[in-house]
C-alpha cells in the first residue's frame, strides 16, 4: 500500500463490504415503491371524489390503509438511502458529511413515524 495518491492508498484493501447492501436495499425498497405507489395512484384517482369524507372512508378501509402504511415505510427508507448518496457525492468535508447524514437519519425516521401514526389514526379512528 502506497501513501501517495488516494487510489494508491486504498489499492488492495478490498471493498468496505457495505456498499452492496446499500445498493440492494435501494432496489428492494424501489420494488416496494413501485407496487404500493401504483396501487395508491390508481386507487386514489378512482375514488368518488376528493372530499374529506370520500378520502377518509377510502383510507379507513383495511387494504388502502395497509398499503399506505407500507408506502410510508418503503418511500422513507428508499429516500434515506437515496439522499445519503447525494450527500456522499456533494458534501466534501467529512465532518459536514457526518452531520448531514445524521440529520438525514433522524428526519427520515421522524417522518416515517409521523406518517405511520397518521395512517393508524385514520385506520383505527371512527369512520
Amino acid at each position, binding site marked *: 500500500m502506497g*501513501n*501517495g*495518491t*488516494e487510489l494508491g*492508498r*486504498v489499492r488492495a*484493501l478490498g471493498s*468496505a463490504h*457495505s456498499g452492496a447492501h446499500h445498493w440492494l436495499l435501494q*432496489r428492494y425498497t*424501489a420494488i416496494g*415503491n*413501485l407496487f404500493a*405507489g*401504483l396501487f395508491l*395512484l390508481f386507487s386514489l*384517482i378512482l375514488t368518488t371524489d*376528493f372530499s*374529506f369524507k370520500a*378520502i*377518509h372512508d377510502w*383510507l379507513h378501509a383495511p387494504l388502502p390503509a395497509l398499503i*399506505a402504511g407500507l408506502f*410510508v415505510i418503503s*418511500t*422513507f427508507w428508499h*429516500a434515506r438511502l*437515496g*439522499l445519503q448518496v*447525494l450527500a*456522499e457525492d456533494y458534501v466534501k468535508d*467529512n465532518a459536514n458529511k457526518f452531520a448531514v447524514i445524521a440529520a438525514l437519519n433522524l428526519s427520515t425516521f421522524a*417522518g416515517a413515524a*409521523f*406518517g405511520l*401514526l*397518521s*395512517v393508524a*389514526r*385514520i385506520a383505527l*379512528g371512527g369512520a
Partner: protein
Amino acid sequence: MAQIEAKPAARPLSPHLSIWRWGPAMFVSILHRVTGDGMALVGLPVLLWWLYAVAAGPVPYAIFAGHAGAWYGKLVLIGLTYAFLSHMASGLRHFVLDTGAGYELKNNALWSILTPVLALSATVAVWVFILLR
C-alpha cells in the same frame, strides 16, 4: 463508510458537467436524480401533510385541499406526478441495465429518450382523467 485519514496534497479534479457533450444517457441519469431527490424533499413532506390532514379532521383537510386545489398546488401535484412516473420509468430502466442488458449504443439512447416521454404521456393521461371526471 471507510474514511481515509491524512489527506494527500490537493490534486486537480476532473471537470464535471461543463466538459461532457450532452447525450440521452447523461440526461436520463440526471433526471433520475432530480426526480428522486425532488420527491424525497418535496413529495414526502406533501405526503405527510396530506395524511396528517386526513387523520386530523375536516377543518385541517379543508386547509390542505384549499392549497392543493389552487393553481400553485395543482402545479406541485402535477410536477410530483411526473416525478413519480418518470423516476419509475427510469428506475425500471435501471433494473434492466442492472442485469447487464441494454448497453448497445442505439438501444441505450432509445430507452433514455423513451422513459421521460412515456412518463410525460402517462402524466397527461392521469391529469386529464382527474380534471375531466
